[in-house]
């Protein structure tokens, strides 16, 4: 075994894992907030996420065809697509809740879950339909912005691109914003109150329905931001590419303790790192017998193991059984 190589790639793998981890953390926040408030797995969150990515690519492509992409400062472009993705995804999440989840509130537990799966599938093909009619293509590539692809050499073996820095910085900013919102504002207090006990919250004069909508708005916006960053970082998107990241983000949320906001961040980072290491080291360590393809199995196995042995997650939010 080549130890030099194993150690040599370590920092780069660490970096890739961190970026992936922040991505998962951002997506996971949306699902974990909704779970915290409604105790329900929002399966359609993967599509809310990928819709954000599509909003971003559509804006970039229009700018490009108008010849403006090179002339507008890239920071402005980036802020615009982030904001647009957040708004569209947030509103989409609110609409989904209103149409497909609210009529089912109070029904047996599996009913809204099945509805959510339905929404997820419906949105995938709806997105495909729209893009097929609009662009006659549904596999879209983010146009490159040259500045973002510049790379800094940290050492001779490790480098980091501007876009990775942007991803990490925006993720940190959004995470900090959410943390402040949930813990320091009145709205955040109301959200936590509804999560704790809907009946008591409504007796205290909190409009539960509005808070739930708001939770979906915030969670959806986080998903949209993650979608745009995903597109910027990895480039190629299609209507179905939200599913696996969405599922992994849910894994991250469970890993950190579902319903728990700091837990989702930590779970995302842990999962991202584990996956990056699995992808790079698995084939090196097993002499090529098991390659990077197994990283998905790795993530799902973690999910299964955590759910079986420590369903509370690593940070131990107590999840109570609702009859």
């Amino acid at each position, binding site marked *: 075994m080549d130890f030099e190589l194993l150690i040599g790639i370590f920092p780069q793998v660490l970096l890739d894992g961190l970026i992936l981890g922040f991505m998962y953390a951002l997506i996971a926040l949306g699902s974990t907030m909704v779970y915290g408030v409604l105790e329900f*797995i929002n399966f359609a969150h993967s599509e809310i996420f990928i819709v954000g990515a599509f909003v971003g690519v559509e804006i970039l492509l229009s700018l490009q065809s108008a010849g403006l992409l090179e002339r507008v400062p890239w920071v402005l472009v980036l802020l615009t697509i982030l904001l647009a993705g957040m708004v569209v995804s947030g509103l989409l999440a609110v609409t989904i809740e209103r149409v*497909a989840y609210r009529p089912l509130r109070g029904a047996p537990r599996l*009913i809204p879950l099945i509805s959510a799966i339905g929404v997820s599938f419906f949105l995938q093909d709806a997105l*495909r339909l729209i893009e097929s009619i609009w662009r*006659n293509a549904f596999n879209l590539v983010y146009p490159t912005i040259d500045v973002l692809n510049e790379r800094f050499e940290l050492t001779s073996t490790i480098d980091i691109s501007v876009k990775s820095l942007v991803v990490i910085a925006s993720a940190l900013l959004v995470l900090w914003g959410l943390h402040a919102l949930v813990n320091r504002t009145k709205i955040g207090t109301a959200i936590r109150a509804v999560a704790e006990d809907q009946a008591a919250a409504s007796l205290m004069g909190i409009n539960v329905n509005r808070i739930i909508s708001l939770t979906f708005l915030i969670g959806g916006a986080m998903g949209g931001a993650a979608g745009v960053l995903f597109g910027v970082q990895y480039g190629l998107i299609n209507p179905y590419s939200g599913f696996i990241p969405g599922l992994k983000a849910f894994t991250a949320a469970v890993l950190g303790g579902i319903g728990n906001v700091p837990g989702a961040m930590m779970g995302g980072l842990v999962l991202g790192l584990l996956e990056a290491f699995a992808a790079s080291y698995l084939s090196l360590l097993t002499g090529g017998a098991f390659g990077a393809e197994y990283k998905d*199995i790795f993530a*799902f196995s973690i999910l299964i193991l955590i759910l079986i042995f420590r369903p509370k997650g690593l940070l131990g939010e107590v999840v109570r059984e*609702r009859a």
Partner: protein
Amino acid sequence: MIHGVASVAAVAASAVLVAVFPRSILAFLAFQASLLFVYTTRIPSWLRGGLLGVALLVLMPLIGFYNGYYLEIATQVGIFVALALGLNIVVGLAGLLDLGYVAFFAVGAYSWAIVGSPHGNEVFGGGFPLGPAWFYAFLIVGLVVAAVTGVLLGLPVLRLRGDYLAIVTLGFGEVIRVLANNLDKPINFTNGPKGITPIGRPPVPFGLPYAEAFYFLVLLIVIVVILVNRRLEDSHIGRAWEAVREDELAAQAMGVPLVRTKLLAFACGASFAGVMGVVFSAKQVFINPESFTFLESIGVLAMVILGGMGSIPGAVLGATVVTVLNLQVLKGLSLWLNELKNAGVTVLGFSLADLPTQLEPAKYERMVFGMILVLMMIFRPQGIFPARRRQRELAAPAAGPTAPPGAGR
């Protein structure tokens, strides 16, 4: 009396219609609708049984001679009916949401595919493929292997709550698919994404053509599955399943062993899928991991939901409707649209030839599944043909978990 005459007339007329217009999708849809009419209308049960028997045993194979694709559709419907009935036990009766059900189908399919094709030599050395007669033995092997897989999966996870169980089964389904995709090294079990071919077909009695033979085989298995399902439903086990679905705590207090009951549900559901997997791999001659995706699992779930969870006629109807929608209606729409495009038809001054080429109605099965799931959950959660007990439960939801919000937390 009038109903009886109408039923006979409907079946006869639609069969003639199919014979006269063998390429018309509408004619075949009419034939299917006539069967539904026969099933639901008020006629003596001997007439109903007779008509359905004649239609399925005589008319359908005859239609197959006019248009082989219809027989293919009927066979596919049969396969999915068996899958839906299997999932119906797990989701409908026992109330365990299994999102990775197609994994068991895959296990069955691969178990015959590996030994029934020359690929077996790569795994076990020489002596493969096994003779075609082994196929019938492998119907049992597929059943057992799938059931064992079900138990192995079930043992650790069945203590989990409903929605966590759903996610774990989803993960398991994905794990099986990724394994099928990648187990071509270090030992080549599945031949990876390239899939396995040619898979041996069983020997056929009476010199029937293969299409007809598979149709009858699938029909036979479906009938057996329906009989088993009906006997199970009212048995000791079936009642235990429903008790667990309604209230685990109460069921346990009444002496129902929770884990064993759930394991049985998993194993029973899985075994149906395993048998059909074996048939599927032989019928297709070629399988690869693409046939066993999450999409298929959700498709089968949509069938069960559409028909009505826990209802046997519901599962049959759901499987038929969804399969026909996918294979017949969506594909038909695609073909029709293409013909219109090629003919240069214009609608309201818009030339259809200018429609985007990526727009293929046949590719939108997810949309169909999604709409079925959402609409059924919102407007008719008990399904089209509800199970009697389920109907009562969902008709009066006020007493249940709705009472005070946040109750029982």
